[in-house]
C-alpha cells in the first residue's frame, strides 16, 4: 500500500513534535521550524494536487488509534482547508524562527507548536469520528498549552487558558456526542457510513446530531454567543500561535459545519441554516462593534475574527438554506463566497496577528493607546499591516472586497427565493453585512491610524525598530494573497468550486464564469478588479502629473496647527479609546462600557484639580451576563457540595445504608 503524500506530510509534522521534545535547545527551534515548514509545504502540494485533480486520497490503518482505527481521506473540501492551514502554518513557522522568545523555545513549547500545526493539518483529513476527535482534541490541547508559555508572568494568560479550555472541551464533547449519535444511527462511525445512510435517518436524529455538532463547531469558529473564549485566548497566545488560531483553527469550526451539515447530512433542514445565519448575524455585529471599541490591538483583531466568521456563517447559512429551498445555483455561489472569505481571512488575519506580534516585540506593548508613529520606524510591518487592514475593510481591489462582493451577490440573488423564512434570514444577513462593514472600517482605520501614524504615545513606541527580515518576509507571504486574490479573484474560484461541490452534495455548477474576474452567469453582475486597479493607477498618475505640472514650488515642513497653542505633545493626540468613543456612545446599550472618572482635588481648594483619572473599559456583555453567573453558580455548588464529605463516618455509612434500603425497597 502506498502512502499518500498528505500522510507523509503529517509524518513530517510528527517528526517535528518528536524533534521538539528531544533535541537540545541549541538546534531545537531551527529543526522544528524546518520540519514543520516542510510538513506545510508537503501538505500544500498534496492539497493542491487534490484540488486541481479533484481526486481524493485515502489512508487507513487499524494499528493506529486503538479500538477506533485511523482513517484519513483528503477530498477537495478537506484539501482546501488543509491548504489554508498549511499556508498560514508555513508563514507562522517562518515567523517563529526569529520571534521565539525564552518561553517558546522550551521542549514542551516547541513540541506543542509542531503538534498544533500537525493536528490542524490532520483535522480536515480525518474521515472517521475517532480520527477526527483525536486530531481535534490534539489541536485543542496543544493550543491550550501554547497559550500558557508565558504563564509565569501573565495572570491574563492563565485566565484565558481556563476559559479556552472549558469552552473547547464543552464544544468537543458536544461534537463528539453529535457525531456518535449520527454514527450510531447510521450504523458506523466512518464519515462515509454517515453520509451513505444520512438520507434514511429520521429528521429528529439528524437535527439532534447537527445541533450538537453545530454548538461545538460554532464555538470553535467563535460564533456569538459561544465566542467568549476567543477574545481572551487569541490575544494571549504568542503571535504565530494567534495567527494560526485565528487564520486556521477558527476556520476548522466552519469546516466542521460544512462537512457535517452539508456533506454528511446532505443539506438537512431549513431551520438549521436559518439558525446558522442568525448566529452569523449576531457574530458579525457583535464582533464588529467590539472590534471598534477595543484598544488592545490583538483583542481588536480577535473580535474582528468573530466579525469575519459571522460573515462566513451568513454565507454558509445562506448556502444551506437556499440549497434546501432548491435555489441550488445561488447556494453554490454563497458557499463559494463563504469559502473565499475564509481563504482571504486566513491570509489577512494571519498577517495582522503576525504584525501585532512584531509590534509587541518592538515596542513592548500592544495597547494602541501606547502606540503611534510606527510607520516611521517599522516601514515593512506598517506596509503589510496597511495592505491587510485595507483588505479586511474590503477596499477594492483588495481580496476582502472580492469576498464581500461574492457574499453580497449571493444574498441579493437569494432574495428572489419564495420561502419567507429564508428571505427574512437573508435580510438580516444583509443588514448585518452592511452594518459590520461600516464598523470594520472604523476599527481598522483606528488600528492603523492610531498604531502606525501620528506620533509615538510612549517611549517604547518611540524607540521601536523594525523586526527581523524573516519575520517581515512571513508577513509579506501572508499579505500576498490579499493583493493577488483581490486583483485576480477568479484564480481561486475553480478550486473553491470543487470544494463547494463536496460541501453541497451533487452540486450544480455554480453561477460563476471562469476567468480572472468575478462574473455571474445567469445573473447580471460582475467585477473586474484588475481593470479597476488599472483605472485607479491611471487616475492617480494623471492627478500626480497634473499636480507636477501646476504646482512647481518646493515643499517645506512646518509645525502642525495647534489652535494657537504653542506646545503640542503626543499626549494631546486622539487615542484609540477616544477615537472609538463616539461610536461607543452610540452603541452603549450593547457595549455597556464601564467608564470611570476620578478627580483628585488640590488640598486647598475644590476648584483646582490635581489629577484626573479616566478609565473606559468595555468587557464582553455576553460573558458578563451569562457565562460568569453560570460559572459562579458552579462555584457556589462546589462549596455547598463539600458538605457531602464532612468527615463524619456516620454520614458516610448512612449513604451506604440509604442506598441499600433504597435498592431493597425498589426491588421488593
Amino acid at each position: 500500500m502506498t502512502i499518500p503524500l498528505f500522510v507523509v506530510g503529517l509524518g513530517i509534522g510528527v517528526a517535528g513534535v518528536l524533534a521538539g521534545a528531544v533535541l537540545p535547545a541549541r538546534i531545537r527551534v531551527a529543526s522544528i521550524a524546518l520540519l514543520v515548514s516542510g510538513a506545510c509545504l508537503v501538505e500544500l502540494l498534496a492539497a493542491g494536487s487534490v484540488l486541481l485533480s479533484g481526486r481524493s486520497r485515502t489512508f487507513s490503518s487499524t494499528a493506529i488509534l486503538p479500538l477506533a482505527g485511523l482513517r484519513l481521506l483528503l477530498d477537495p473540501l478537506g484539501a482546501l482547508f488543509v491548504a489554508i492551514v498549511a499556508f498560514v502554518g508555513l508563514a507562522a513557522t517562518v515567523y517563529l524562527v526569529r520571534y521565539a522568545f525564552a518561553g517558546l523555545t522550551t521542549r514542551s513549547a516547541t513540541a506543542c507548536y509542531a503538534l498544533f500545526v500537525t493536528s490542524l493539518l490532520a483535522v480536515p483529513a480525518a474521515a472517521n469520528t475517532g480520527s477526527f476527535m483525536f486530531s481535534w482534541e490534539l489541536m485543542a490541547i496543544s493550543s491550550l498549552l501554547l497559550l500558557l508559555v508565558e504563564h509565569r508572568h501573565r495572570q491574563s494568560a492563565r485566565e484565558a487558558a481556563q476559559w479556552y479550555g472549558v469552552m473547547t472541551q464543552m464544544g468537543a464533547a458536544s461534537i463528539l456526542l453529535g457525531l456518535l449519535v449520527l454514527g450510531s444511527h447510521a450504523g458506523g462511525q466512518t464519515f462515509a457510513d454517515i453520509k451513505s445512510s444520512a438520507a434514511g435517518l429520521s429528521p429528529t436524529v439528524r437535527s439532534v446530531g447537527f445541533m450538537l455538532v453545530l454548538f461545538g463547531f460554532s464555538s470553535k469558529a467563535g460564533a456569538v454567543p459561544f465566542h467568549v473564549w476567543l477574545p481572551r485566548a487569541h490575544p494571549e497566545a504568542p503571535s504565530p500561535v494567534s495567527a494560526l488560531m485565528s487564520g486556521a483553527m477558527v476556520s476548522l469550526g466552519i469546516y466542521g459545519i460544512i462537512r457535517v451539515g452539508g456533506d454528511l447530512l446532505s443539506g438537512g433542514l431549513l431551520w438549521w441554516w436559518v439558525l446558522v445565519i442568525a448566529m452569523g448575524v449576531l457574530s458579525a455585529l457583535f464582533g464588529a462593534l467590539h472590534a471598534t471599541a477595543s484598544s488592545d490591538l490583538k483583542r481588536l483583531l480577535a473580535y474582528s475574527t468573530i466579525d469575519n466568521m459571522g460573515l462566513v456563517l451568513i454565507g454558509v447559512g445562506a448556502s444551506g438554506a437556499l440549497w434546501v429551498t432548491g435555489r441550488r445555483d445561488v447556494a453554490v455561489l454563497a458557499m463559494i463566497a463563504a469559502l473565499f472569505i475564509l481563504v482571504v481571512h486566513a491570509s489577512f488575519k494571519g498577517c495582522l496577528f503576525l504584525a501585532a506580534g512584531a509590534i509587541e516585540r518592538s515596542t513592548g506593548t500592544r495597547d494602541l493607546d501606547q502606540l503611534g508613529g510606527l510607520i516611521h520606524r517599522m516601514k515593512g510591518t506598517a506596509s503589510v499591516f496597511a495592505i491587510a487592514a485595507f483588505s479586511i475593510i474590503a477596499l477594492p481591489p483588495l481580496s476582502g472586497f472580492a469576498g464581500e462582493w461574492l457574499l453580497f451577490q449571493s444574498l441579493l440573488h437569494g432574495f428572489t427565493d419564495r420561502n419567507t423564512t429564508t428571505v427574512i434570514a437573508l435580510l438580516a444577513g444583509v443588514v448585518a453585512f452592511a452594518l459590520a462593514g461600516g464598523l470594520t472600517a472604523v476599527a481598522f482605520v483606528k488600528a492603523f491610524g492610531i498604531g502606525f501614524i501620528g506620533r509615538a504615545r510612549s517611549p517604547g513606541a518611540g524607540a521601536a525598530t523594525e523586526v527581523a527580515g524573516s519575520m517581515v518576509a512571513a508577513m509579506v507571504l501572508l499579505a500576498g494573497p490579499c493583493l493577488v486574490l483581490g486583483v485576480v479573484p477568479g484564480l481561486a474560484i475553480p478550486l473553491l468550486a470543487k470544494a463547494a461541490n463536496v460541501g453541497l452534495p451533487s452540486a450544480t455548477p455554480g453561477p460563476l464564469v471562469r476567468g480572472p474576474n468575478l462574473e455571474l452567469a445567469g445573473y447580471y453582475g460582475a467585477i473586474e478588479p484588475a481593470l479597476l486597479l488599472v483605472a485607479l493607477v491611471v487616475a492617480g498618475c494623471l492627478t500626480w502629473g497634473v499636480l507636477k505640472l501646476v504646482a512647481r514650488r518646493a515643499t517645506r515642513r512646518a509645525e502642525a496647527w495647534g489652535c494657537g497653542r504653542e506646545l503640542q505633545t503626543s499626549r494631546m493626540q486622539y487615542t484609540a479609546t477616544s477615537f472609538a468613543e463616539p461610536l461607543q456612545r452610540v452603541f452603549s446599550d450593547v457595549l455597556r462600557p464601564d467608564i470611570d472618572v476620578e478627580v483628585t482635588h488640590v488640598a486647598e481648594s475644590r476648584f483646582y484639580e490635581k489629577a484626573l483619572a479616566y478609565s473606559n473599559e468595555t468587557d464582553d456583555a455576553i460573558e458578563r451576563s451569562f457565562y460568569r453567573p453560570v460559572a459562579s453558580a458552579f462555584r457556589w455548588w462546589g462549596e455547598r457540595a463539600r458538605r457531602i464529605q464532612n468527615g463524619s463516618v456516620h454520614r458516610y455509612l448512612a449513604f451506604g445504608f440509604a442506598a441499600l434500603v433504597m435498592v431493597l425497597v425498589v426491588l421488593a
Partner: protein
Amino acid sequence: MIGYAAALRLASGIVLLAAVAMLWRRDLRAAVPVLAVQGVALGVVAGTLALHQHDVGLGVTAFLVLIVKGFVVPLLVWRVVRRDPKIRETAPLVNVTASLVAAAVLIVLSFVVSAKITALSPSVATRLVPLGVATILVGYFLLVSRRRAVSQIVGLLLIDNGIALVTFLVTSGVPLIVELGSALDVLLVVVVLQVLVVNLRSRLGTFDLDQLKELHD
C-alpha cells in the same frame, strides 16, 4: 427434644433478638454476652442444618462458627470494651426509642424483600431468611447511629452474623474453602479494628468517632 424446624426457628430468632437487644441496650459491656449468644445461636443453626442434612462438612462449619463467633470474637470485643473508660453509648445519633421503631420498619422491609428468596425454594429454612436479612439491616443501622468505636465493631459483627445466618438458611453454607476464608477474614477485620482502636485511643485519647472528623472537604 425440640424438632428440627423448631430448633431452627428458635436459634434464628435468637440471632435477630440479639441484634435488636444491641440496639436497645446502651451499655457497651452488654455487647459481649449478646454477641456470644448470637454466635452460639448461629452455631446451633448450622448444627441443626448439618444434623438434618447429614452433612459432615456443614457440621465442621457449625463447630467452627460456634468457636469463632461464639467465643473468639466476643473475647476480642471484650478486650476492646475493657479499655474503654466510657462504657455507655451516651448519646446515640438516633435515640433508642426511634432506633427501635426504625428496627421494626427494617424488619418489615426484610420480610418483604425476602419473599422473593423464599419463593425460589420454600422450605423451613428459607422461610427464616427474613430474620437474617433483618439482622443485617439492624446491624447496619447500629453502625450508622452509634457514636462509639466499639458500637461500630459490634455493628459490623451483626451484619456479618446476619449474612452468615442467611447463608446457612438458603444454601446450608458456602463451600468450605470460602467459609474458611470468610471466617478468617472476619477474624482479621476484628483484630485490625481492635489494633486501630488502641492506636486511635493512644493518639486521640478517646473512642468517640465524632473526633474522627479531621479528614473532610
